[in-house]
């Protein structure tokens, strides 16, 4: 087995080639700091992720396991809650889901939307702890 310290530092060096790795390291750091402050052990990190965050979910999940190695979060899970894209429709005067990420028109009336309400989130919302 690799030494965990070595694994993590090589990850930090490698982190950029797939930016999910550096994001996973940030998530682990953030959660570890919070857990340390509260004196708890983390079982899972809950993350909200929008499709317009620029992050590939599978790559982030894969990276997370590696990023946890040798940290107090070793063995914890990353639970990703995917949130849909929401735009504001000026014709309906309401927040609506667009037809798709590739077609930011109101799914109800078809009006193109200039205003993104939700969908670019990448946010740690909670820790599951013991």
């Amino acid at each position, binding site marked *: 087995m690799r030494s965990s310290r070595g694994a993590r530092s090589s990850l930090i*060096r*490698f*982190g*950029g*080639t*797939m*930016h999910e790795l*550096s*994001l996973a390291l*940030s*998530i682990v750091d*953030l*959660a570890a700091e*919070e857990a340390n402050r*509260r004196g*708890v052990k983390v*079982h*899972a990190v*809950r*993350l909200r992720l929008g*499709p*317009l*965050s*620029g*992050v590939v979910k599978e790559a982030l999940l894969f990276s997370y396991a590696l990023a946890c190695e040798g940290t107090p979060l070793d063995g914890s899970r990353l639970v990703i809650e995917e949130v849909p894209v929401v735009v504001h429709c000026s014709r309906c005067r309401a927040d609506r889901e667009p037809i798709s*990420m*590739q*077609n*930011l*028109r109101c799914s109800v009336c078809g009006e*193109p*939307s*200039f205003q*993104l309400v939700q969908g*670019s*989130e*990448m*946010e*740690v*919302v*909670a*820790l*599951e*702890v*013991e």
Partner: protein
Amino acid sequence: MNGPRLIEVRQRVLKQNDLLARALRERFRRAGVCVISLVSSPGSGKTAFLERTLGEFVRRYSVAALVGDLATENDAQRLRRSGARVQQIATGTVCHLDAAMIERALEDWSLEELDFLFIENVGNLVCPASYDLGEELRLVLMSVTEGEDKPLKYPTIFNTADVAVITKLDLAAAVEFDLEAAKAQIHAVRPGMRIFEVSAKSGVGLAECWRYLEARRLSSA
């Protein structure tokens, strides 16, 4: 007790970058420098576009550029011929620029002396989308040789950019590029997005794009 105990955290993963970007944006505004970043896939013509733009702007403005590149100094050397101050940011294996890299690169700069600062990001349509650099305006470039459907494949980068620039227009006929289809696809992922069509080689469309950048500088001042 059944089930896990939950601690609410609510923290953006890129909070550090976002805070730093916000501080940079404030610093740029105070200094009166209009900061424009360029993103695109590798080989879309960012450097050629910038070469022409710096060459033109350097005659009328105090202008500089930061150039992100994985390893080489080639782009920076090419851009220095314009006479503008150009600094390379070697990102190593990192596939994008982030706000901390911009802050470090500008450490000893007197931004007050500048009218325009251009930031050329690493050629990549995925990762740069997540990182705010504090820029006033983000241009996303796509060349006619890449095909019309780049926006549909990479909606996020188009969504985080302000302006689209279609480049290498001189090659459009040779590759049977459908300009109207490309514009429709850009507008599908980013309704209302301003689009310029240029060729750094022939010079077509550049003047119009430059006028827009100049107007943007005045309106942000």
